[in-house]
C-alpha cells in the first residue's frame, strides 16, 4: 500500500521537473541518461572484448571509409582493438571513477565541514586551514606528486580523485551548519538536551542535503576532466585498461592519421561534462530560491 501511494507523487515530481526544465536542460538530461545507460550496459552491448587485440587489423577506419573492417563500427586503434567497445568500457570506468571520487570527496569534505561548523575553535581553524591550503595549491600538481610517489594503480587513482574536491564540500557544509545552528529549531533541540551528534545527524544534516547534491553534481564533471587530464598525461589508469582520458591521451599521436581513435572518446567526455554541468546548474537554480524565478 505504501508503494502504491508514493508512486504517483514521485511521478508527479519528475514530471514537474521535466515540465519546468528548458530545452537545453532537457537535452542534457537525455544525453546524461543515455550515457549512463551505455556505461551500465557496456558488457552487454559492446561488440568485442575491449582488450582483445588484432595486430593485423590495426588503425582501421570506421564504417563507410576505405579499409573498414566489418564489425568494427567505429574503427580500430593502434593495437587493432575495437574503438566502440573500448569507448563504452572507457565511459563505464570514467563514470565509475567520477562517482567514486565525488562520493569520497562528499564524505570527507562533508564530515570535516560538519565537524568544523559544530565544534568551532581550533578544530575549525585546523580544518579550514587545510581547506585554504588545498585551494592555494593547484590540485593537478598535488595529483601528479601523489601518482608519481604511489604509482598509477586504480585505488590510488580513486583516492586522488576523491580528495580532489573535498575542500569545496567542507566550505559549503561549514557555512550551512553555521547558518542553521543559529536557527530557533536547533536552539530548541539543544534546550531539550539533545546531544551534539544527535543534533548534527537528525537536524543539521537533512537541511544541508540540497547544496551538497548540487556540489556533488558539479564536482562530478570536474573529476571527469581531472581523470581525463591525468590519463592524457599517462599518469591515470594504466594500459591496456581504457578510460576516456587515456584513449584520448594515447591516441593523440594518431590524430592526423587515425582521428577516430580520439574523436569518439573526446566526444563522450564533452557530452558527459556538458550534461553533468547543465544538470548541476539546473539543480543549483532549483535549490536556490533567489535563482528559481529567473
Amino acid at each position, binding site marked *: 500500500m505504501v508503494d502504491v501511494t508514493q508512486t504517483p507523487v514521485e511521478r508527479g515530481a519528475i514530471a514537474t521537473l521535466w515540465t519546468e526544465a528548458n530545452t537545453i536542460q532537457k537535452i542534457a538530461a537525455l544525453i546524461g541518461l543515455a550515457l549512463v545507460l551505455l556505461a551500465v550496459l557496456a558488457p552487454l552491448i559492446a561488440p568485442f572484448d575491449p582488450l582483445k587485440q588484432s595486430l593485423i587489423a590495426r588503425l582501421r577506419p570506421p564504417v563507410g571509409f576505405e579499409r573498414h573492417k566489418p564489425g568494427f563500427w567505429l574503427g580500430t586503434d593502434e593495437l587493432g582493438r575495437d574503438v566502440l567497445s573500448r569507448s563504452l568500457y572507457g565511459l563505464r570506468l570514467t563514470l565509475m571513477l567520477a562517482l567514486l571520487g565525488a562520493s569520497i570527496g562528499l564524505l570527507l569534505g562533508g564530515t570535516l565541514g560538519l565537524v568544523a561548523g559544530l565544534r568551532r575553535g581550533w578544530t575549525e581553524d585546523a580544518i579550514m586551514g587545510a581547506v585554504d591550503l588545498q585551494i592555494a595549491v593547484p590540485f593537478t600538481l598535488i595529483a601528479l606528486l601523489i601518482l608519481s610517489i604511489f604509482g598509477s594503480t586504480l585505488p590510488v587513482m580513486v583516492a586522488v580523485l576523491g580528495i580532489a574536491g573535498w575542500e569545496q564540500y567542507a566550505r559549503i557544509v561549514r557555512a550551512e551548519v553555521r547558518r542553521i545552528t543559529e536557527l530557533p529549531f536547533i536552539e530548541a533541540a539543544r534546550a531539550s538536551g539533545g546531544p551534539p551528534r544527535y543534533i548534527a545527524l537528525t537536524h543539521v544534516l537533512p537541511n544541508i542535503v540540497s547544496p551538497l547534491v548540487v556540489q556533488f553534481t558539479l564536482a562530478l564533471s570536474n573529476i571527469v576532466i581531472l581523470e581525463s587530464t591525468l590519463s592524457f598525461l599517462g599518469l591515470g589508469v594504466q594500459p591496456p585498461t581504457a578510460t576516456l582520458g587515456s584513449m584520448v591521451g594515447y591516441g593523440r599521436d594518431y590524430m592526423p*592519421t587515425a582521428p577516430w581513435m580520439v574523436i569518439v572518446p573526446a566526444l563522450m567526455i564533452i557530452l558527459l561534462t556538458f550534461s553533468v554541468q547543465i544538470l548541476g546548474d539546473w539543480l543549483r537554480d532549483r535549490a536556490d530560491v533567489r535563482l528559481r524565478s529567473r
Partner: protein
Amino acid sequence: MKALLTTTAALACLATGALAQQITVGAANVSSYLDPGRDHSNVGSQFYYNTFDTLIGKNHDSIEADWQPALATEWTMIDPLTMELKLREGVTFQNGEDMTADDVVFSLNRMYQATFPPYQVRSKDRLANFAEAIKVDDYTVQVKVEREEPLWETLLNLQQVMIIPEDYTKALSGDPQVAEDGDFEAFSLAPVGTGPYAVSEFVPGEKVVYTRYDGFWGDKAPLEQATVIRIPETASRITALKTGEADIITNVAPDQLGLIDADANLKTEGSATALFHVMIMNVNHPALEDPRIRRALSLAIDRDTLNEALWYGKAIVPSTHTMAEMGALHQPDLVTFEYDPAEAKRLLDAAGYDGTEITFDTDPVYYTNGLLAAQAIVEMWSEVGVKGRVNTTSTWSGSSPDLMVRNWSNPMYFADPFGSFGVMWAPNGPSEGEGRFNTDAEYAEIWDRFRFSSDVEARKAAYAELMERIKDNPPVLPLYRPYESWAMRKGVNWAPKPGHIPYVLDFRAGSISLADS
C-alpha cells in the same frame, strides 16, 4: 637607385644563403650532460660525433671495418701488448689549445685508469683490458693492454675514448693541475673537442647548439650552425617540421611515416638501427627462477607479427644476438630465439606455472613502439596461458629485485659481438651487476674465449656456446632491430650512415647538405 636595388638584392641573397646554412633538429630527447667518456646512452650518442674525434677514424659509409686516420695518422704494434700511434700535428681544440700527446694521454687514461665513478663504469664494461697510455713525445703515444687485444682499432674508435683537452678540463674546478671529479662534471656542461663543430650553447635536457669550428683539421663543416631542441611529443615534432620550426625531426614512429611522405615538402629517411629492442627477464625473481618459465615467455612471442604490425615489416627480427655490422663475427645461422607457442605451453605445464601475474615494465615513450609492443606481448602471453600486466613507468626498474620483465635496448656500441651482447651480458657486467642475471665459472671461461681469442673461428665458436647458454636459461630476448626514421624537409640531404653506432646525428662534410644553400 638601380645600384641600390641591386645591392639590396645581393645582400638579401647572401643573407638567405647564410640562413640556409643553419638547421634546427627537433629531437625526442636531449642529453642532460655532454661527455663522450661517461655516456653510452641512445640519447647521448646523437651528439658527440660533431664535436669530438677519436684517434682512429672509420669510414661510416660502409658497415665494414674500414679504419681511417683521424687524430692518429698511423699506428703500429711494437710488441703484442703495445700499440704506438703517431698523432696528427696542427690539430687544435675548439678553445684554441693545441692538441698534443699530453691531451691524448689524459683523455685515454681518464678512462683506462678511471677515478671518476661514471668513467669507471664505462672503463669496466668495455675498456678493462686497456692498462694505460704513455707519452713518447709531443706527437707520439703508446697504448698498453693487459692481454693480447683482438679489437685494437675497434676500441680506439670508441665514443668513450674521444679526445678532450687536458689543461682546459683540469682548470674547470679546484686545482688546475689535478683532474678532479668536479672538472669532469663541469666539462660535461661545457664540452670542448677537436671536431668540426663547437658546442656554443648547451641547455641540459633541452637544447644543443653547434657552431662551425673554422680551425677544424679536416674538411670544413657544411653548416654554419645546427640547433638541436627537445620536442618530446611525436605529434609536436611533426607539427614543428610542417610549420618550418624544425628542418629535421628524430624518432618518427612508423605509423607516422605515411603522413609525412604524403607532404610534397617533406621526406623521410630511415634504417634498421644497429640496436636491438630487447625484453629482459629477471632470472632471480622468485616467479621466474625456473628457466622453463622464462623460455616459455620468450617462445610465446611472435616477433615476426610484431614486426609486420608495428614496423610494417621494416625491422629486422634476429634468430640470435647478432648483427651484419659484426663482419666475420656475424652468425645469422645460429638459432637462439624462436616462436613456438605449443612448446611454451608445454614448458609452463612442466614448470607448474601457477598463474602468477607477470609484470612487463615499460617507459611510456622512450622506445619507439615500446608501449605498443609491451601490450602486444602481454596479449601473446595470454594466448599460452600466462597472466601478464603492463606496468608503465618512467623509472628504470632494471636494477630492482622486484623486476620481472621489462623492455630495454642492446645497442651496438662498436661493431663486434663484444660491443653489444658482450658488454651487456658479460660476467660482472651491467646485467649481472644489477642483479637480474647470473654467470658462473663456466660461462666466464666461454666468455673469455669469445672476448680474447685471436682466431676468429675460435671467437665464433665460443660465441655460439654463449648463445646456447642463453637459449637454455634466457635472461633476454632480442625482439628486433627497430626501423628508426627521421623526417626532414625536402631541401635537406641527410640520412643515417650505415657505419655509425645508433642514432648519430652526423653533420660533418659529406654527411649533410642543404639544397637551397
